């Protein structure tokens, strides 16, 4: 990986593209729009300009093909390889091929979003290799992101600008600056405030934005992944998560929606009311399953609910102030998990460790992330 002798780039900033044919999955207008927006992802941050031509040879020839299409890299039917593209150069250089055995889509999460796949392939057409930064557009595997709110991540911006420079003729309007490219959250940020924490079959998962860190008891390093990498169906920026070891299920919560996971598989789709929470509760801040009492605790602001999982009923007298059961916990609980008899309540960057209802320690949330 490190011994890259060659860099491929175009010697001009004015490039042409031509759409040779269309997929039956989408209308002509949808394909045109997806391709044009995919090119704009790169034009927005470089001096590159893309002009569409309708005949002859363009720098970037775009086509939908299946199986062996005589370029030495046959496609493999549905899934697997979705598309590929060639680095800048004459002839096939710069061209992008899309496997029409896939189902491409325009806006829905059905199949593979053509805009996302095309934006990635055009990165290759412009000379970029794959990136191993999770969440980067040039990461090799497909991962759905809402195309309407898509912003080119910083790793990709950095690498394309290393080839072509930045977009000089579009000065930044200080009143309305470009959206800053999203940066992966830093596990060692002292002010790290997590969205949710849960255990999962002996591991610990720490959720932040569209990512999570995974701590395996036998591994020394902390690995970061996209949530959708493992669970494409799950949303980003979740509210809470907890594991019920006795059922081997992990519950992921966002708004009133709840997803029950068994390993990689989403096995149930529930709602907060499935846990006895009143309909007036639209969102919670944190959740944890107490293995001793076999109760699921749901934290909302400075109070919390206790749900008897076996009896399938909310305990009487709830909600209660958190501080009543967890003395010293005076701020909002933003995440929680339990391990080896300790209950850890996160509040922003701080973690309050309780044992048998007594506050025994105050930590930093990133102290779990092996900084």
């Amino acid at each position: 990986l490190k011994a890259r002798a060659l860099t491929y780039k175009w010697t001009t900033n004015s490039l042409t593209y031509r759409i040779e044919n269309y997929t039956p999955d989408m209308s002509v207008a949808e394909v045109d729009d997806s391709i044009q927006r995919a090119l704009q992802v790169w034009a927005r941050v470089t001096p590159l300009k893309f002009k569409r031509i309708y005949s002859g040879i363009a720098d970037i020839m775009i086509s939908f093909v299946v199986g062996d299409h005589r370029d030495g890299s046959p496609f493999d039917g549905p899934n697997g390889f979705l598309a590929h593209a060639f680095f800048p150069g004459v002839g096939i250089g710069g061209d992008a091929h899309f496997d029409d055995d896939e189902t491409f889509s325009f806006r829905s999460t059905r199949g593979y979003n053509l805009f996302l796949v095309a934006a990635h392939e055009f990165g290759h057409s412009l000379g970029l290799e794959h990136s191993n930064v999770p969440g980067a557009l040039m990461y090799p595997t497909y991962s759905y992101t809402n195309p309407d709110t898509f912003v080119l991540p910083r790793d990709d911006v950095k690498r394309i600008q290393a080839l072509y420079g930045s977009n000089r003729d579009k000065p930044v309007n200080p009143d309305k600056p470009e959206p800053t490219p999203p940066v992966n959250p830093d596990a060692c940020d002292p002010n790290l405030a997590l969205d949710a924490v849960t255990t999962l079959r002996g591991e610990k998962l720490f959720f932040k934005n569209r990512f999570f860190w995974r701590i395996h008891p036998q591994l020394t390093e902390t690995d970061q992944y996209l949530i959708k990498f493992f669970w494409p169906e799950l949303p980003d920026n979740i509210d809470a998560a907890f594991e019920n070891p006795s059922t081997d299920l992990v519950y992921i919560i966002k708004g009133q929606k709840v997803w029950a996971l068994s390993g990689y598989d989403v096995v149930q789709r529930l709602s907060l009311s499935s846990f006895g929470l009143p309909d007036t509760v639209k969102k919670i801040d944190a959740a944890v399953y107490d293995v001793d009492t076999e109760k699921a605790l749901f934290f909302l602001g400075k109070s919390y609910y206790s749900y008897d999982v076996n009896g399938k009923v909310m305990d009487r007298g709830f909600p209660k102030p958190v501080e009543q059961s967890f003395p010293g916990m005076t701020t909002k609980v933003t995440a929680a998990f339990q391990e080896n008899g300790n209950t850890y309540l996160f509040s922003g960057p701080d973690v309050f460790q309780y044992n048998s209802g007594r506050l025994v320690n105050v930590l930093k949330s990133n102290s779990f992330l092996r900084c």
Partner: protein
Amino acid sequence: FRAHSGPVAPSETDDHEFAKNYLKKLYNMEEDNTPSFGRKVNEMSLKLGEMQEFFGLKVTGTLDAETMEMMKKPRCGVPDVAA
């Protein structure tokens, strides 16, 4: 995660073949026609290690479940390493 998704576990030879093609196409694993089995296994283990390192998996050099899960993900057909 100890994954147990999927209705029928593919045979090991299928997985091995799949992994071999994956590494040939995406990690420049050489096509090797000389029957020296020892060397072939080594190269595959090396390439598996390279792929595991790229994706931030545990670098074992062996075809474990997590590595197989990663290989099965839909992806771009451009190699991950320079030819």
